[in-house]
């Protein structure tokens, strides 16, 4: 078997890569796929915490590539969905504790056993970025609809085009209120600017913060707007044709009139 290795990247930090990796991974696993998540953020380990498996981490990715343990010893199995595993990052090593060849080999090895290898990329475009990209076959770029993340996303897309080809885009933290007021770039604006394929839109949602507190990603509990969005994204990755709900700030005429006459 040879699975698909997908890197989740952004350039800019703090836009939602780790959250996206956890939710997409759980989404794919709940569709019956065998999934391993690699925390590629060496030195700043977080994916274990977001997944809620931090207490069960024993070995990490640096132990694996330096031969201190076998890959299967380092893998942490998810308690909720048994086909999901995490390869934790090391919290104490430097970003360059792993080189590109080691990362590529590890990914190739994991692809033998898993349908999906999802790799959470660190912020920036240095060694950590190059490693995770080298280990992947495809890329997902995450951005928020703000000027700096979009600019950084463009840079990353440019870098990816020469290696992995055209990435797919997730626009995270979209606020419908702000879009309707004309104070936030909408999906069409972002696509006009970045000219890539849209994989999905995730709304701004308090549930993400609560999920982080609990170590239980939003996709696990249906009903939250962000969880549903990640569920749809997972199905799109599996090739299902799931429409992207229009989140372009279009109001009904009645609402518009009300707003014009009576303010917001």
């Amino acid at each position, binding site marked *: 078997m040879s699975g698909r290795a997908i890197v989740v990247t952004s350039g800019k930090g703090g836009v939602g890569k780790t959250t996206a990796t956890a939710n997409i991974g759980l989404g794919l696993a709940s569709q019956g796929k065998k999934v391993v998540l690699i925390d590629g953020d060496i030195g700043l380990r977080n994916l274990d915490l977001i997944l809620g498996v931090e207490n069960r981490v024993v070995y990490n990715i640096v132990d694996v590539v330096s031969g201190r343990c076998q890959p299967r010893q380092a893998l942490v199995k998810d308690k909720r969905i048994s086909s999901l595993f995490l390869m934790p990052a090391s919290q104490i090593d430097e970003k360059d504790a792993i080189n590109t060849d080691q990362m590529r080999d590890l990914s190739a090895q994991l692809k033998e056993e898993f349908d999906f290898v999802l790799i959470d990329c660190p912020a920036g475009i240095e060694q950590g970025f190059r490693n995770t990209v080298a280990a992947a076959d495809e890329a997902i770029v995450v951005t928020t609809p703000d000027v700096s993340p979009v600019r950084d996303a463009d*840079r990353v897309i440019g870098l990816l085009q020469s290696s992995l080809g055209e990435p797919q885009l997730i626009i995270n933290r979209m606020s419908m209120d702000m*879009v309707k007021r*004309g104070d936030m770039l909408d999906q069409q604006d972002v696509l006009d600017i970045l000219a890539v394929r849209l994989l999905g839109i995730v709304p701004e949602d308090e549930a993400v913060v609560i999920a982080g507190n609990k170590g239980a990603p939003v996709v696990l509990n249906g009903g939250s707007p962000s969880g549903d969005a990640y569920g749809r994204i997972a199905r799109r990755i599996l090739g299902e044709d799931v429409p992207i709900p229009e989140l372009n700030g279009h109001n009904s005429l009645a609402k*518009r009139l009300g707003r014009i006459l009576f303010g917001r």
Partner: protein
Amino acid sequence: MTLTELIQRIQHSFGKGGSKDEAKSRLLLVLQDDRLGLTAEEKEALRQDILEAIRKHLKIDAEGFTMEFVSSPTDQNKMHVSAPVQVGRGPANFSK
């Protein structure tokens, strides 16, 4: 409510007139620059070459010569060159 206020509200209700238009035009411009990846020296060399090329054929005012990159939703990725041509009597081309 004044008329300008009303117009602003109408624009707003269509998602226009908010700060995102500014975000979009600024991004398009800065990304064009990022993507071109020309250094200041390279841009200056290009400017000089274009100026020279035009001057081979026309008499232009070097002071007023400008070259700039523009990009907007309607007018994407263009280089605008503006050269004030000095038109005298007789043919435009001249000998130096």
